Every structure is written in C-alpha cells, then in structure tokens.
C-alpha cells in the first residue's frame, strides 16, 4: 500500500511541474491520443469521461477501472508552434562555440517563425482513479479523479520584431496576441449515462438508439496564472518618443501550501513552499459535461457533447496585475516617466479579492463507423471524425476549431490495437498520431503519441507528446 501511495504522490508531483490540458485541444486519454484525439463518437467506457459521458454505455465491459497500476494513465505534451529541432539547432546550436550571429536573412527567417505569435506550451494530465459500472437497465455510473496542469505562453509577434529589428519610427507594435495561461486543477466527477431511446424503426427513421450522459464535477484549483486582457500597443515618433496605449489585466492565485509571496505583499508571513498531492486548494468550483450519442444502423455513431461547463472561484493568495492608460516616454533619464511606462506596460500588482474563471468549455461533435470483420478488412476497424470547438482560451482550449479523423484497428485477437489519425486546427495545428494497445482480457495497456511526426522526422517536429495508460475491465 505504501508503494502505491508513493507512486501516486510521485505521479502527482510530476504532473504539478508540467502542464495538463483538456478542452478542445488538450490532452486526452491514451486511446484517444493514438487516434489524433478523435474520440467524440468513438470513445468507450471510462475513456469517454470528459469527452462525452453518454459513451460510458459503449463497450462491452460491466466494470472498468483506471488505476496507476500497472501503467499510470498519463498524458504529456510539450512544444512550440514555431521552433523545430532543426530550427533549435540552427539558432541555438551556436557556431564554433559562439552564438550564431544573425544576419538579415536569419532575422527574416526567425521573424517568419514567429508570425502570428509564437507559443510555448506544456501540459500533462493524469487520471488518478476512475471506476465505472454498467447495467443494462440502470445505465452506467462512474466516478473519477483526474488532474490537469497546463501552461501556455504566447510571445507576441511584435515583441520578436522589436527584439530583432528594434523600434522602427512610425510603426505601431501591438501586443494583443500576448497570452499567458497556466493552471493546475483537479476534477472529482461523478457521471451517469443511460439509454434514452432504442427502436428497430429508429427515431426519424434514422437513429436506432440514443444514449445520454452527464458528469457533475467538483473542481479544485491549486494555482492559476492568466491574462484576461492584453490590448497594448506602442509607436515610435519621428523624434523617437514612445507613445501608445496600455491595457493589461491578469490574475493569479496560488494554494497557500505553495508559499508564493508577492512583491507587494509585505504582510504575507508564508512559511515557505510545501506542495503536496492534497494541498488546500486556491480555488474551488463546479462543472458539468452533457453528451448524447446516437447509433445509425449497425455501423454509424454520431455524438454531440458540451464539456466543462462551469466556473472556478479563486480565493486564496490572489493578485491582479493591472496596466492601463496612455504610454508616453520621451526622456529615458526621467525616472518617474520611465517607471510609469514600466508599470503600464507590465502592470502594477496588487492584492485582489476572489475572481472567477470558467473551465475549458468545449462543444464536441463526432461520428464514427465501426467495421467489425467486414469483407474487406480483417478484424475490427473503427473510423471516426471529430469537430471540437473550444468556447474560450483557458489552458487546453482554443477558439480555433479543431478537426480530426482517427482510426483504430485490431486485425485479430493476438495482434495489438493500432491507432492512428490526424488533426488540424486548435492549438497544435497539424498533428499525425499513432498509438498501440495490447488487450490482456482483464487489463488493457496502451501507448500513444499525438505527434507521430516527432518520431518520423524528429528534427522537424515542433511538439512531442506521449500518452500511456492501463485499464482494468471486467
């Protein structure tokens, strides 16, 4: 028992230092990851939690568990949207032991990499424990504890241009694309799914079976750092006076156990950092997922779900960073003027009462086709298509729609599952996924990456990801 506890704590500590994501583009379970996160209609059992709770009824198992053993259910992803290994080597590999001197072509090349803003992200999710029970007449019920930690920093394109080329007279630099979001949240969710309709004739002569599901969540947040608004711009006049407008608002909140002390807060008598897997939360909230799944004939499944509808109220160790007003700097030797500009650009920090954030709410649509021992393809093949639309930009989410197709194929009993898919849009852009899984009857072990290109052409890849997990089923 001690070993299990130690493993659990280790896993959570690992996760606390990285970033987890869910929402429309974030990390999902290992099976979905192998299918390029194409899971809205194709997920099954406990792997459907957080995606479409009505899919709890899918699958043949009566009871299934997610436990840290034999393989913890863990998803990790990190990368940038601008820097591949090749680019990293070129720009950060040096020349004869010295930093590479960037000529104009190099600067153009670097600028192009950051076009539209350059984001760096890392996220991780871990499912600490989950259990579901399914009964034909009652439906399915599940309980799950899962952690998500995520971070995303978007370098504004203007900042890169400024750093490389300086401030050109007459040109306005806007920093609207700057973004910082990071959090660590824990969901305690209880889910229920049941059959809502079943008929040979079909509803509207189309849907033979309709399932519905809902997940209710209690959410704990351990830290949050996020920009709410960045609408800052600067301009350099013909006499080099810097003018512009600052409009920055950001919030933060930390669990008291993290021992974070703000510069402005001399009254904070924090006794240092003591992070642990069961820290007192910085914020609490609630949320729910609601989903429906409909079968069309024997082969097709369509799905619709709204996930993570809810709020977190952050109360502990909160601060706001506020910068607003007109920017004017025409005298570098004027310390008061310079301090004012710095405060407006980077925000003045001060204590804040509670504030509220949403969850990574998303709308998920999907369709899948199951080909079981068809004439053309041996074994079981599932093809799926997803459309995921994030409703906000919290970690794991993106308002940029994400489309994906995925497939899972198990040619025969002794051959593992092969999973693949490709995804376009969302945070990551284009991704090619690959995964495998072995099914040993009572336990299933899976391994996947949503960034197969990092394995095929690692030097060109901008992201790397890994998901693994095991599922007990009875």
């Amino acid at each position, binding site marked *: 028992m001690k070993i299990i506890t130690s493993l659990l704590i280790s896993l959570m500590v690992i996760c606390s230092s990285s970033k987890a994501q869910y929402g429309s583009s974030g990390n999902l379970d290992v099976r979905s990851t192998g299918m390029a996160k194409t899971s809205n209609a194709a997920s099954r059992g406990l792997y459907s939690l957080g995606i479409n709770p009505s899919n709890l009824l899918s699958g043949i198992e009566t009871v299934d568990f997610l436990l840290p053993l034999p393989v913890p259910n863990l998803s990790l992803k990190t990368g940038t949207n601008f820097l591949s290994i090749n680019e990293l080597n070129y720009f950060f590999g040096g020349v004869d032991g010295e*930093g590479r*001197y960037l000529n104009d072509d190099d600067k153009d090349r670097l600028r192009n990499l950051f076009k539209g803003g350059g984001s760096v992200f890392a996220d991780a999710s871990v499912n600490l424990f989950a259990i579901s029970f399914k009964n034909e007449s009652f439906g399915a019920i599940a309980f799950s504890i899962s952690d998500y930690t995520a971070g995303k920093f978007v370098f504004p394109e203007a900042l890169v241009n400024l750093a490389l080329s300086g401030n050109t007279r007459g040109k306005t630099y806007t920093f609207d694309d700057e973004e910082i979001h990071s959090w660590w949240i824990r969901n305690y969710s209880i889910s229920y799914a049941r059959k809502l309709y079943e008929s040979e004739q079909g509803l509207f002569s189309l849907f033979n079976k309709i399932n519905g599901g809902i997940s209710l969540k209690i959410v704990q947040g351990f830290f949050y750092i996020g920009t709410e608004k960045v609408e800052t711009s600067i301009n350099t006049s013909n006499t080099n006076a810097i003018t512009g407008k600052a409009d920055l608002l950001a919030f933060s909140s930390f669990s008291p156990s993290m021992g974070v002390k703000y510069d402005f807060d001399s009254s904070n008598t924090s006794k240092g950092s003591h992070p642990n897997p069961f820290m007192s939360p910085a914020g609490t909230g609630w949320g729910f997922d609601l989903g429906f799944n409909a079968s069309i004939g024997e082969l097709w499944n369509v799905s619709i779900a709204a996930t993570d509808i809810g709020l977190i109220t952050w109360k502990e160790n909160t601060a706001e960073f506020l910068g607003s007003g007109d920017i004017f*700097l025409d005298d570098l030797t004027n310390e008061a003027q310079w301090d004012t500009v710095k405060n407006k650009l980077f925000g003045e920090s001060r204590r804040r009462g509670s504030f509220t954030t949403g969850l990574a709410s998303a709308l998920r649509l999907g369709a899948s086709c199951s080909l079981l021992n068809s004439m053309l393809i041996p074994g079981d093949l599932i093809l799926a298509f997803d459309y995921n639309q994030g409703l906000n930009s919290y970690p794991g989410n993106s308002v940029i729609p994400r489309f994906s197709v995925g497939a899972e194929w198990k040619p025969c009993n002794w051959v593992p599952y092969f999973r693949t898919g490709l995804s376009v849009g969302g945070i990551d852009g284009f991704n090619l996924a690959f995964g495998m899984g072995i099914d040993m009857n009572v336990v299933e072990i899976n391994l996947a990456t949503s960034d197969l290109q990092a394995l095929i052409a690692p030097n060109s890849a901008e992201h790397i990801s890994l998901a693994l997990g095991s599922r007990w089923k009875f």
Partner: protein
Amino acid sequence: MKNIFKVLFPIIFAILIHSGCVNLPDEIIPPQWDVDLNVPIINRSYLMSDIIDENQNIYPGAADSIYIIESDNYNVNSGIASRIEIENESVMNDVVVDAKSDTQTVLILFPENIELDSAVFSSGFLHYSVYNPTSDIVYLSLEIPGISKNGSVLVVNRTVFPMSYDSSSQNLEGYKYNFPASQPPSLKRYLLVNPTITSSNKNDSVICDFKNSNFQFSSVTGKIGRRSLGNFNEKFSLKLGDAIKYRDKIFLKEASLDFSMKYASYYNSFFKAGLKNLQVIGRRNGGQTLNLSMRDGTSLDILLRAQKSEIVFNELNSNINEFLTFLPDEIEITAEHIINPDDENLSFTITNRDTIKYGALFRSRGYLALKNIALTDTLEIKIDEGDRKSILDSKAADLTLNFENAIPLTTSFKVVLTDKHFNPLFTLTRNSAGEDSMLINGGEIDLITGDVISPAATFQNISLDADKIRMLANSYYAIVSTTIKTKESSGDPSALQMVPIKVSNWVSIKAYGMVRYHVNPD
C-alpha cells in the same frame, strides 16, 4: 500473448532507435545580433531658476523677476584717531603772585577755546616761568585742582632765588582732567591754577608766565570745535573666486553700491562727525585702480548721522557700473575724519576708541553683457566597470540634439574625452560637419529692452562609430571648454547689448537617436 509481443516489440524498438536520431544541440547557445534602437534620450526644459542656485548672493527681484546679484556685506572698522590733538597753545604772562594772599586764582585759557569737562591726557605740557624781583628766597606752590593722577591733585613746588628766574614744564601725560567743582561752570574754557608763595617778607611777590601746549587726549568730554582728525584709509578684499574669469568680459548695468557709515562711540555718546573727501578706490592685484566717482565730479563729504549714514552709488550718480565691471581684487576707502563738522557749540565725548564702521554692499540687477567668456573645466566621468562593458555592446550611435534657447546667452562648448592619464581620446562634440564645438544660439532679443522675444532653435548631430564608442567606454575625464557671450551690437564695450537674466528664461534640450546595440544573451 506471445504473438502480441512478437509484433509489439519490433515496433517499439524501431521507434526508440529512430528517436535516437534526434539531433539536439549539445549546448544551448543563444544567437547574437545587432538591433537598431530608436531611443528618446532626454527631453527637458530648464527654467533659469533650475539652472541658477539661488542663495543670498543671487535671487530674483520681486518686481520683474530679473535676478539680483548681491555681494556679501563688507564691513570694516576704522578708528577715528589714535588721539585727539589740540594743536595750538595758550599763553598767559605777567601774573603777579604775592605773599600776602593765602589763596590766589589764575585762569589759563585752554588752547583753541575748547571747553573741557573731562579729559585724559596722552600728552601735553604746562610750561611756567617765575621771576623773583625780591631779595628774598621765595617758595612757589602751583596747585592745579582739575588735573590729577592716581587721585592726587597736581601740585608743583618751586624755590625761586632772589633776583632770578625759574622755569619748568610739567608733563601731563597720564594725567586726567576733571572740571573742578569749585570753578564756576561758565569758566570751562580755563584751566584753574591756584598759586601761592611763601617768603620771609609778606610784601614779596613774584611774576609768573604760563603756557600750555601739545595737548593730546585719549578721550575728551567738552565743547570742541570743528576739528580734523586726519586722513585715514582702510582696505578690504573682494573674494572674487571664479568671477575673476569674467574680468574685462562682463559688462553690468543697473549696478549699485550701498555705502554705509556709522559712528561707534565708545561711551555711547554720539556727536556729529563727518567724512571729508571720501574716496572708494578699486584696485587689482596688478596695480590697476579705478576710483568710484560721482558723475558731477563733486567730492564726497558726508555728515554722519546719529544711527547709520548711507549713500547709494548707482548708475545715475556715479560710475558704479564701470566700477563693478572692473572687478577689483581690493577696495580701499580713504577719508578725512572730521569731528563736529558744523562747528556747533555742543558738549560731547570723544575717545581714541571711537570708530567709524564702513559697510559696502554691491548689488547688480542681472542686466549684463558678456564678451566671449571662456571657461574650461575637467569633469570626472563616473561609470562603473559593468556599465563600461555595456557601452561596448553598442556598435554605433547617431544622436540628434535639439536645443531651444530662450536665454539671451549664446554658448558654444567642446567636450574632449580623455583616458585615465588625461590623454585625449576624441572630441565628443565633433559634429557631422566637422566642427569640434557645439553652438547653442541665444534667444532672439528685443534690442531695446534686451528681453528674449523668441527662443533660438539649434540642431546638432553627433555620430559615434564603433571606434568612438570603444573610446567612450575607456573615457575617465571630460575636458569641457565653454564660451559664453551675449549678443554684441559692436566691438565697442559701451555699445554691447545688455540683456536681463530673468527667472523665466528657459532652455530646452531634446536628444534622441539611434543606437545600434549588439545583443548577446550568452
């Protein structure tokens, strides 16, 4: 299960092998590059009140905010005299003193008709001669009740032989005089002498002559007529300091000198005194002198009043503008001290401890003309070593300097940077036109009032290449040569355009430029 692993392991193995082909850099070395930063360096306006350190010597005038330049108050004490001298003598002859009378009275007129209440002799003689026409020896006693020493009245005893003369002089130095109570107050002009003779024959008599002379008093109370105490002179230095640099190059207007005199009586017993032919002489160390003189050519005779007598020299009544422009190192005051100048019939006390306190306060309104005043100063450049290294990260700089000058002074300056050993490195102010000095034109002025009517704009451009920036990082001293002048209407100093320096005069400096900075995060 066995078959599963047969398939799974080769795939995983292939992935891991392939992953080993990731070509990660051994060490992350950030790139380096040059960036052109357009920076606003300074944009400031300075009122004259920001530039001038106002104090008790320079402050704005209340009426029109023109600066007042004022000296410290120079004071010098001049003793009126080492002694008060009665130059003339008085004589009284043929005074018969007989032996019959026990008491006889002789009144000898003081010289120059002075009336004494009291006095202390610093010198003086009472001469007497006696003729004894008898055949007896006569004993003569001269008691002078008004003169005493250590409480003892002066008494002279002489023996005069028959048919012979006797004469002597009594030195009065150290003696005091007090008007005798027995002497009628109306006879203060006289020295009372009580002579008596003793002889064997009561009918004997002698004939006496008296003379007093060379009376000099250290203090005296009484009625003394108008009297000169002689010429006196006193000197005091003007501590010009750096102002000496302006000699012959600054021309002042509306200057003034408040010259005050006060008679300080040792016994607080003031009476009228006067200064005759007062002269204020400016003298430079090189020997050149300039007298402060009245425009109408009159000499200065001043009657000192009860408290403080004052005369104000201004540009209307004197040549004070020229005098102050002369910037003497030393001021000498000469005057003849006169007591009782109106020769009034008054009783007063005068001592050789009495003084006349002279006070001089120079003042000039900030109306001036400057003629190419050259100033050179060496300034230490205090930059820490870390900042010197940061300067080396700059590869070039192109600076634009805009001056708007609403001060009626044209300034040009040249800044030469030197190394630790004062070896010149380069001229910082050398502009793109090849000129070493940077000129800041004075504001345009109204030729009548000298007031600035519009600021003058000056643009300068300085380019620093990598070599100069390297030298800048190695600079430890700046030799700043400055030339300041006001507008000149001609070379004739008397025709120089005078300008007022006002609190509201201002100058603005706007500097901005491009700095090519080498970014090397490593």
